[in-house]
């Protein structure tokens, strides 16, 4: 065993009250770190997951048409009218789809043809969003299969899939028929093959999935698609990838981040306040370790003098106290990880939604433990720096004589 370890471990073991004090402080600090981070990141992950349950990470559309006045001095334009928003198809969408699929970071992409329509059964009529999709590729972009409440997620011929709210509004179930018609008057009868619950009331009330071909006919975009929906590997990379897609294809591409800016601002300020609290906790722990070790150096002045008189170098003395700080940090991170995990799990268990799902999902990852342990050990070592330097500077002749 290295000499410094031998002395440092013994000092910690024998200085029972002091060791318990700093270890307790460090444990609480690490526990707060673990608990807070697990809670905040779990909460944020669940908020984002909730948001993205019915939303693609990137939405690619045809570029917006901008009206420009014709040039020429003889016909000055008083004002320029905006082009009426009509359903427009993405040009050469098959090529675009293939090109998006080759961008690194993109997991899947699916074409959809979407537009407004009415769904009616008997006297009941509801305004809906018609979404023509290819079920297989769509399911790779939006995880809809596990969210099916009845029937199956497949579309053949004139089948349609509706949300739970719309199904109850219209009073339909799997196997029933509904009429879907566009405001322009094109319509057809569809058989309900499945009912979904995407966890969003608006979506459950308005979305109707039909085969891409049927939607193209109803919306009068033969062979065309209005959007390409993209799933990416790293959700916070969506903005960059959206820009990349737009640049490559000359299309308009919006990331979920752009479409949910308020959520993002909320997440960022939440993270910032959590960081602030954690920084203060780390500071408090550091001050605690520094002051207790400082007192211990004063109490041990004479012993340190004796150690030096008997051949212990200045560097060794310094390392003994740095090591004490690091060991307190290491032991505190083990205990704190336990306490913090128990706190987080207990908290998640206390607050449950009526469905039994935890309201506050916690994110206890190996990375979190590793991070907290690193912070604790580094903090312990840095906090020990001042007491250790003080110990190293002690003059043996003085402390042996005067204590």
């Amino acid at each position, binding site marked *: 065993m290295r000499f410094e370890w*031998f002395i440092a471990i*013994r000092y910690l073991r024998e200085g029972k009250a002091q060791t318990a004090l700093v270890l307790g402080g460090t444990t609480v600090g690490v526990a707060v770190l673990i608990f807070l981070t697990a809670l905040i990141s779990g909460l944020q992950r669940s908020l984002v997951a909730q948001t993205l349950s019915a939303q693609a990470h990137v939405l690619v559309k045809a570029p917006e048409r901008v009206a420009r006045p014709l040039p020429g001095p003889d016909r000055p334009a008083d004002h320029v009218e905006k082009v009426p928003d009509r359903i427009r198809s993405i040009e050469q969408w098959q090529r675009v789809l293939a090109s998006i699929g080759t961008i690194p970071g993109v997991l899947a992409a699916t074409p959809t043809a979407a537009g407004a329509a009415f769904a009616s059964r008997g006297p009941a009529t509801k305004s809906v969003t018609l979404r023509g999709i290819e079920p297989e590729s769509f399911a790779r972009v939006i995880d809809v299969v596990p969210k099916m409440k009845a029937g199956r997620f497949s579309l053949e011929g004139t089948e349609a899939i509706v949300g739970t709210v719309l199904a109850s509004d219209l009073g339909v179930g799997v196997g029933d028929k509904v009429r879907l018609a566009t405001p322009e008057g094109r319509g057809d009868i569809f058989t309900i093959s499945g009912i979904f619950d995407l966890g969003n009331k608006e979506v459950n009330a308005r979305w109707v999935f039909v085969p891409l071909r049927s939607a193209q006919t109803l919306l009068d975009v033969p062979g065309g698609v209005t959007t390409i929906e993209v799933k990416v590997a790293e959700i916070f990379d969506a903005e960059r990838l959206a820009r990349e897609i737009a640049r490559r294809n000359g299309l308009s591409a919006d990331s979920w981040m752009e479409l949910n800016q308020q959520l993002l601002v909320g997440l960022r300020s939440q993270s910032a306040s959590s960081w602030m609290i954690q920084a203060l906790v780390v500071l408090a722990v550091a001050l605690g370790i520094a002051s207790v070790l400082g007192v211990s150096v004063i109490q041990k002045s004479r012993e340190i003098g004796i150690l030096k*008189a*008997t*051949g212990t170098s200045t560097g060794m003395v310094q390392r003994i106290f740095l090591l004490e700080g690091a060991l307190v940090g290491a032991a505190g991170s083990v205990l704190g990880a336990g306490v913090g995990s128990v706190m987080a799990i207990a908290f998640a268990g206390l607050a449950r939604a009526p469905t039994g799902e935890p309201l506050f999902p916690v994110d206890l990852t190996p990375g979190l433990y590793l991070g907290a342990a690193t912070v604790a050990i580094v903090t312990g070592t840095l906090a020990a720096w001042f007491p250790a330097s003080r110990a190293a500077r002690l003059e043996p*002749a003085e402390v042996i004589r005067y204590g």
Partner: protein
Amino acid sequence: MAEPGGDVLRLEGITRDFGEGEARTQVLRGVDLSLRRGEFAALMGPSGSGKSTLLHIMGLLDKPTGGRILLDGQDTGLLDDDGLTRYRGSTLGFVFQFHHLLPEFTALENVMIPMAAGKGRVEAPMRDAARALLDRVGLSARADNRATTLSGGQAQRVAIARSLARSPKVVLADEPTGNLDTQSADGVFALLRQVNREEQVTFLVVTHDRRLAERTDRIIELVDGRLVSDQPNQPR
């Protein structure tokens, strides 16, 4: 290297001042002194005469304001702090008035610490060596007792074993019996003398006790920072 009977420690014109300006006091005023290998000398003098300061300077625990220290042929003024620590560890042993054992450690571990500090590691053979030294001072039975559970005389014997841990050339003892009853004091003094005779280790013992000083080979007297007397003695 010092020849047998040659100087193992030589002080040349050692001065030591404390304080600055008006408050400056000269504690040592030019001390020349040599210790021969295997010698057993007593350093006497009234309180405040500079005995402890001189001992600390000889022990490289303190630096002189002026003068030169040659230890085992090495001019110690040429060593940096780490060099001094290493040299001190390998050539010098200390016994203090209060045993100054480390209370967190057992008697055995206290003896091992200088060995471990010298090597930077705690190694198994050090245990055996430390046990042999405790055996030497008659305390092997208490090897695993905490330093705090030993009596004054026992603790001072452990401190002597510790001072011998790295086979020093010179042992400096600052009133090693000053805190002991007469019987323990005689025992400890006899032990120092025995080690001196058997291993030819040089001893310089600071003492107030004329009776004990009479048992050494040489009596050096310091008054007001100057050597006033340096007489060979025929131990009784």
